[in-house]
């Protein structure tokens, strides 16, 4: 073979090799892409299934307190013509400030038969209690208190003893002890707290809250309209009373 022929043969061999390598790359790219899409689809399905399972577990274990109003998601106090809905989390310090700031005024309005307060105990701060889910436990306990007609008393004592955010929250024993101090002494209450009877209910209240387009606590709604102060702040007591007076006409 001449030198020229040898070169040509070598060139051809190299071209074939390159084509083979390119083929291999294409195949690898194709199949790895298919694998990636498959993994992502599976991950999505796992997520969706997990979500549905959690929903099913909540719905399955749901116990709605007999006295709850508004689709079974709130407790009404008072009989006045203006409806004031308050969405609060027992772990939320701003809610506690709101209670300290406006609680007494609102109670007076209830006594004067000017308003009907509807308390919605939501649990959006479960990740602020070191995994003990204080928000959900406290909201559930409030439902158990409502069963015995002591929602307001229990609500107030929980806020008066609010744990720090990102602490363990109050233990069930402490919750039961505080309840006793406001006259909630029944075994039924203690059992409901310890068994977490109303925890799924607290989840449902929170879902209802979200589905209504709310996402922060406290959310104050007067006759169906959300009330905020300037720059999305919690409304002052004056603003609340003025708005209630306006709503009353």
């Amino acid at each position, binding site marked *: 073979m001449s030198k020229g022929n040898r070169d040509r043969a070598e060139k051809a061999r190299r071209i074939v090799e390159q084509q083979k390598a390119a083929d*291999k*790359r294409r195949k*690898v*790219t194709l199949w*790895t*892409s298919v*694998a*990636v899409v498959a*993994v*992502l689809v*599976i*991950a*999505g399905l*796992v*997520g*969706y299934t*997990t*979500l549905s399972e*959690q929903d099913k577990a909540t719905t399955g274990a749901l116990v709605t307190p007999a006295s709850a109003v508004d689709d079974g998601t709130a407790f009404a106090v008072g009989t006045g013509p203006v409806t004031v809905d308050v969405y609060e989390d027992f772990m*939320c*310090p*701003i809610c506690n400030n709101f209670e300290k700031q406006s609680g007494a005024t609102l109670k007076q309005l209830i006594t004067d038969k000017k308003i009907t307060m509807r308390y919605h105990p939501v649990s*959006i701060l*479960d*990740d602020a209690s070191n995994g003990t889910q204080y928000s959900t436990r406290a909201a559930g306990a409030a439902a158990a208190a409502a069963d015995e007609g002591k929602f307001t008393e229990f609500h107030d004592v929980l806020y008066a003893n609010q744990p720090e955010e990102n602490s363990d929250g109050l233990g069930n024993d402490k919750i039961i002890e505080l309840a006793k101090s406001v006259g909630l002494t029944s075994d039924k209450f203690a059992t409901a707290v310890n068994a977490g009877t109303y925890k799924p209910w607290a*989840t449902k209240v*929170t*879902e209802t809250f*979200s*589905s209504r*387009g709310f*996402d*922060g606590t406290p959310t104050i709604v007067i006759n169906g309209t959300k009330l905020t102060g300037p720059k*999305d*702040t*919690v409304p002052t007591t004056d603003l609340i009373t003025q708005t209630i007076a306006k709503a009353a006409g």
Partner: protein
Amino acid sequence: METTTRPAIWPWISTLARLGLAAVWLVAGATKVGDLAASARAVNAYDLMSYDVAKVVGGVQPFLEIALGVLLLIGLSTRLTATISAVLLVIFIAGIVSAWSRGLRIDCGCFSSGGELGAGRNTQYGLDILRDLGFLALSGILLWRPRSRFSIDGALMGESS
């Protein structure tokens, strides 16, 4: 034809970008996967879709983020996973810009369950966007130079790595 004298620095840069982006997705997913309801609320807080849709998006998203993180970590079809990362990041940035322009006061929910901010806490949309742009740059590196060390891609292509 490729020369063999070019310093092989890009595969190393791409490796760092790949592992960095993998860590971003893994952390983002892990912080949300434990509380899907909270993740749903974070999506809902953007006020861009109905709660029922937000719930599914918020529930599925952490799983996708973790899967994407794992795929990048092992280096499977890096160019595709980088593309998907870039698309997701662009959507996230658009969401933050939209929340910002509408004056919403929310936590972006990027590495947490997010939601509305309490009083006295400030939004930090600018920082969030800047950070996401940084992650987008990592995806860009991988899109441009997907070849990296210690990757399944490399092993399958039969490259010496």
